[in-house]
């Protein structure tokens, strides 16, 4: 599966958002996710399928004003 994760291309053996997070090493981390610009709640990650060309954003806390 060829997807873009946080702006970087990945060829990854994952079929869902949850699997992708696990393979990327973020399986146990507190993160927020969006797929192709739409929010994916944590509870929906295992049921959210990936397709070639998808854009996955994985966000976490950062300083802000």
């Amino acid at each position, binding site marked *: 599966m060829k997807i873009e994760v946080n*702006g970087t291309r990945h060829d990854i053996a994952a079929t869902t958002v949850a699997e992708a997070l696990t393979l990327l090493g973020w399986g146990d981390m507190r*993160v927020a996710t969006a797929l192709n*610009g739409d929010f994916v709640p944590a509870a929906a990650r295992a049921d959210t399928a990936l397709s070639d060309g998808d854009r996955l954003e994985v*966000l976490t806390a*950062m*300083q*802000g004003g």
Partner: protein
Amino acid sequence: MRDFYGTVLDNPMMLGTARFPSPQVMQEAFRQSGASVATVSLRREGGGGEAFREMIRSLGIHVLPNTAGCHSAREAITTAHMAREYFDTDWIKLEVIGDENTLQPDPFGLLEAAKALCADGFKVFPYTTEDQVLAARLVEAGCRVLMPWGAPIGSGQGLNNPYGLRTLRTAFPDIPLVVDAGLGLPSHAAQAMELGYDAILLNTAVAEAQDPVAMARAFGMGAQAGMLAAGAGPMPVREMAQPSTPVIGRAWL
């Protein structure tokens, strides 16, 4: 202090967490300012996010995630949903930027996002201009806080349009108002509070001071002084002098 979506803040200062020289300085600045709210954001995972979230939690104050950097309603709405889950709060500082140079809010995108988020149960703190008509539309959309800018973000110019801010205060006596952005000096904070505003929100003026901790304390004192003054009933401004020492009893020399 006024009610922010059911929460009465014990201090009128809201402080950002960005641009501090170190985490230790940031934490001490929060303590010295007495700030009751900390603003935070979400960015691509690069390590350290969870540790930062824990540090903010340890401050024991309210967390207000922002949608900084969003240029469309869609981006802001998605970011708000991600922030609600990540930070476990329905508070959101809604920013939809319309101009790269001034970072002025896009009023049309802001209203569109505010409508969607209010309908979805968010407690929206919209970063807006002092435009009274836009403010009315945001209140209609369900916003129960308004955060007009003092000046462009990070500019330190202070209150560029005191008339507009005063007019907004008069037009919305029951809505909590926060001057957000553009403050450079504690006197600006005092001025905002003297106008009857309920809080101030700033970041750069403290974080980029030579001594952020001292500046944080100074801003906290400025906000407190302004709040006290607003409640004390300022005297009317007069065109001409009026002697303060009694005229009666003056010697005939």
